[in-house]
């Protein structure tokens, strides 16, 4: 991943997070404000609904008191025989729009009942137990009717004729028809739960069209049961999405302060939800636009920011590739400009240091070469000097032995001169390493030939040879003679490293970019310092040799575009690893 891509991702993430956070904060703020406004609206509507309910209550009380004050009621009150008035309540109830109406004598005996005409003559003792009905107004009461028990909103009036009293108890059922008289504001609806049973009964939940749907019953049950338990107003939201509603549950208490019903005023949250949805869509649109714009600006900004960095990287790459003269254009005075200047300064110093290093290394190389030459040449020169001195001493002191000494001395001189010639030849070979001639080579066959060549010598040195050759090793391009020389040098090194015998392992393997050749011994091993200097020309850990073997190996491998390394620990042997393409 490029620096620019990473920077772009960071910018994008920052934009998204920032826009998201701002969106959330704005959304939460708007939501809070809207909820407050909705709450205020619902409170106002509920208050309006309460007024509507109170108006109905007052109308019922007014109607009942009107009946009580009518001539009909006064006439009945004055009578002693009520048998002729059995159907009076029904006609009065119909005329005044009441569902329920009972005319009750002073002793509590029903004279006429609109809701249950057959109930004449029965007692309504509760009417006679309240001292002042006029001040009581309308109230809720459980009413037993022919078709079951219901809750009714009742008012009681009294008609008097002299000392005779007639109770007029009338009102309306709290049912679908009553709910339909409550005209709720737009977006609201009213439901009524009649608390007629101990347990919640879905059939007792009514709306203006009759029994409320089962979904309403299921949703409202917890709220109703909470109101039944706490006996106080409760508010809750039910449903989801556009069907969500805020429900105000108002407990309705009866004459004896018993909970007879729960009036549920449902306010639709549709408008709020739709507004929320619109704002959400708008927010998403704005956020998307903001994010898109942010990404575009990030793209431009990252391009602007990373251009000098990219140039710096390109220059660094050139330096890494060996172009030590690469520089970066300094266009700004900011940190990137400072970095460019530092880079230019660094490459400049690197070039200078490299030149100094090359110079010093050249000097060191000459010194090492001189030292090695001196050392190598000193060994054969000393026998030459001794032999010549012996020959001079014999001619001067022992002339009779001079011939014999001369003969022996001549042989020694020739041998040492040959040795000198060989030393010079090696140096010459190292100096004149030819360029490899590339051919198709099977490395396994080369390894097998080497093993066969050194077989007797290894046996004599008590070294066990082990080969692990990959049968699927691909053919590589290389110089057969030079690579054979590499294997020979490594094999000889291994034999020298195991004077007490051991195991020599030659291993080949294919890998992704070419082949690998490993030559391992079980000898003394090398220290890290020895490993570091092992391929330096004229460096050797042995008492004999020129120290050019591994230098030649490295030179050959380098000419084949390969790489050689050594893995070794003292006492655990060494492994030379060659990777060829």
């Amino acid at each position: 991943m490029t620096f620019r891509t990473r920077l772009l991702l960071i910018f994008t993430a920052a934009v998204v997070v920032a826009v998201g956070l701002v969106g959330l904060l704005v959304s939460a703020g708007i939501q809070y404000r809207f909820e407050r406004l909705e709450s205020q609206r619902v409170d106002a509507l509920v208050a309006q609904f309460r007024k509507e309910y109170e108006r109905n209550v007052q109308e019922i009380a007014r109607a009942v008191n009107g009946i009580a004050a009518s001539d009909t009621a006064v006439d009945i009150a004055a009578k002693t025989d009520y048998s002729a008035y059995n159907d009076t309540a029904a006609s009065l109830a119909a005329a005044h729009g009441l569902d329920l109406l009972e005319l009750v004598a002073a002793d509590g005996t029903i004279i006429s009942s609109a809701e249950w005409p057959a109930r004449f003559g029965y007692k309504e003792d509760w009417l006679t137990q309240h001292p002042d009905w006029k001040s009581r107004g309308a109230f809720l009461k459980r009413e037993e009717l022919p078709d079951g028990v219901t809750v009714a909103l009742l008012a009681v009036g009294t008609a008097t004729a002299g000392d005779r009293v007639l109770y007029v108890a009338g009102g309306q059922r709290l049912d679908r028809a009553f709910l339909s008289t409550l005209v709720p504001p737009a977006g609201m609806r009213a439901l009524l739960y009649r608390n007629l049973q101990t347990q919640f009964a879905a059939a007792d939940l009514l709306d203006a069209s009759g029994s409320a749907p089962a979904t309403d019953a299921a949703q409202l049950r917890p709220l109703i049961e909470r109101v039944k338990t706490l006996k106080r107003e409760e508010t809750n939201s039910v449903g989801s999405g556009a069907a969500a509603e805020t429900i105000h549950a108002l407990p309705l208490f009866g004459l004896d302060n018993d909970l007879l019903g729960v009036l549920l005023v449902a306010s639709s949250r549709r408008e709020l939800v739709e507004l929320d949805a619109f704002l959400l869509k708008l927010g998403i649109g704005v956020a998307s636009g903001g994010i898109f714009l942010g990404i575009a600006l990030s793209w431009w900004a990252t391009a602007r920011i990373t251009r000098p960095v990219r140039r710096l990287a390109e220059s660094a790459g050139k330096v890494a590739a060996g172009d030590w003269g690469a520089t970066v254009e300094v266009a700004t005075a900011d940190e990137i400009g400072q970095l460019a200047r530092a880079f230019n300064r660094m490459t400049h110093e690197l070039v200078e240091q490299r030149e100094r290093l090359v110079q010093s290394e050249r000097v060191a190389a000459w010194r090492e070469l001189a030292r090695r030459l001196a050392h190598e040449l000193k060994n054969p020169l000393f026998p030459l000097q001794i032999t010549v001195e012996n020959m001079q001493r014999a001619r001067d002191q022992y002339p009779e032995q001079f011939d014999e000494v001369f003969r022996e001395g001549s042989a020694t001189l020739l041998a040492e001169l040959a040795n000198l010639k060989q030393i010079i030849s090696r140096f010459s070979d190292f100096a004149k390493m030819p360029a490899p001639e590339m051919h198709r080579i099977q490395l396994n066959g080369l390894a097998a030939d080497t093993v066969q060549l050194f077989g007797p010598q290894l046996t004599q040195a008590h070294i066990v040879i082990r080969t692990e050759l990959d049968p699927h090793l691909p053919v590589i391009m290389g110089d057969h003679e030079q690579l054979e020389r590499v294997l020979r040098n490594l094999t000889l090194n291994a034999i020298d490293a195991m004077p007490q015998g051991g195991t020599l392992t030659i291993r080949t393997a294919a890998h992704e970019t070419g082949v690998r050749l490993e030559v391992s011994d079980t000898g003394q091993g090398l220290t890290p310092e020895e490993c570091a200097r092992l391929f330096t020309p004229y460096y050797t850990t042995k008492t004999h040799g020129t120290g050019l073997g591994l230098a030649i190996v490295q030179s050959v491998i380098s000419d084949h575009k390969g790489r050689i390394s050594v893995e070794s620990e003292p006492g655990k042997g060494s492994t030379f690893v060659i990777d060829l393409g």
Partner: protein
Amino acid sequence: MWSRFRAGRNVGQASWPVVALERQAPRLAPRLALRLVLRLAPRLVLRQAPRVAPRQARRPVLHIAVVMVCVALAGAATRPRYGGTLRVELHGAFESADPPQTGPGMADLARAFNITLWEGGRRAVYAADENAAGGRPFVDSVEIQLARPPRDQSIDLELGKTDIVELGPNEIRRQQPGRRTWQSQPVRVVALVFSRRIEDFRVREALALAVDRAAILTVLLQRQGEISGALLPQWLSGYAFLFPAAFDLPRARSLAAGAHPLSLGVSDPGLRTIADRIALNARDAGLTVNVAPQGANQGATQGASVDIRLMETRIASADPSRALAALAAAFGLPEPVRAETPDALYAAEHSLLEGFRVVPLFHLPDVYGAGPRVKGGPGITPLGEWRFGDLWIESVHP
């Protein structure tokens, strides 16, 4: 009604000669003689010939003479007139292909009228029969509106849209003072009839004891009719008071223990309020009775889907034995033995009722109201039979 008559209460409007005649009526002779006189005294409103003491019955000639004088005076004031249409409204629908041929009511018109138009459930028109055996009726035709609710009939009568209407208990109370009404003897029997599947007689007796007949008679029937535990009314049998009709709620509760809910079928909407009251009384006794409205034409053998039926049937004969047999048949009871003596008749009726398969509740009269245009009459007999041939129409002066 008879007791009301004897108490001097008059439900009709009569001129002074007629009133005088009425005052003398207890002393008058047998029914046929009296009816002959009344035919000549159209202003007289008299519905039942009084029962007279034997001593008074020995002097009929004197009384007839007195009546004749009165009639002559009355006739001078109002003479019968021919012509016109008598407008009648009935509650019954009679949704049949042909007009009724038996029973009181329209079938009685066949004596003096011929049917000319029949629209079952809506309207019937009868024309005067010029060759009627008792002579041509005064009116040319009788036009009957069917299926009119009692309240509407009463209003139509008030507004002069009709001449004769049926009056229910509540409508009687609402009539203007002086309104002419004709009331028969209690000829309709209202009774509870248990189906065969209610085998436990204790349940049947419990319901019989739970019904507060007095309250129903006083309030719902406006004291029209009589409480009775017998099939035959007191006026016909003379022993009806011997059958118990008491209200005994504690005993009803003890008998009703463990009873299953019962269904009470009622085919006549006019009886619905009584059925509701009975259901309420039954609930006080521990019986659950659910009122189930039924079709109007379901007879004794029909309506098997309900446990109890509240039925009303008519006494069609003045012969007690025949009347009992007819009632037994109507209520689905076994045919009683033909009784020749009151004791035998009582025994036969007692035998019919002892299992509480049928619980008689009330005997109710037929009551009609007549408008001011209607003269003559009464238009019905003590058994509720129509005698519209004796009526004529006069224009009403404002």
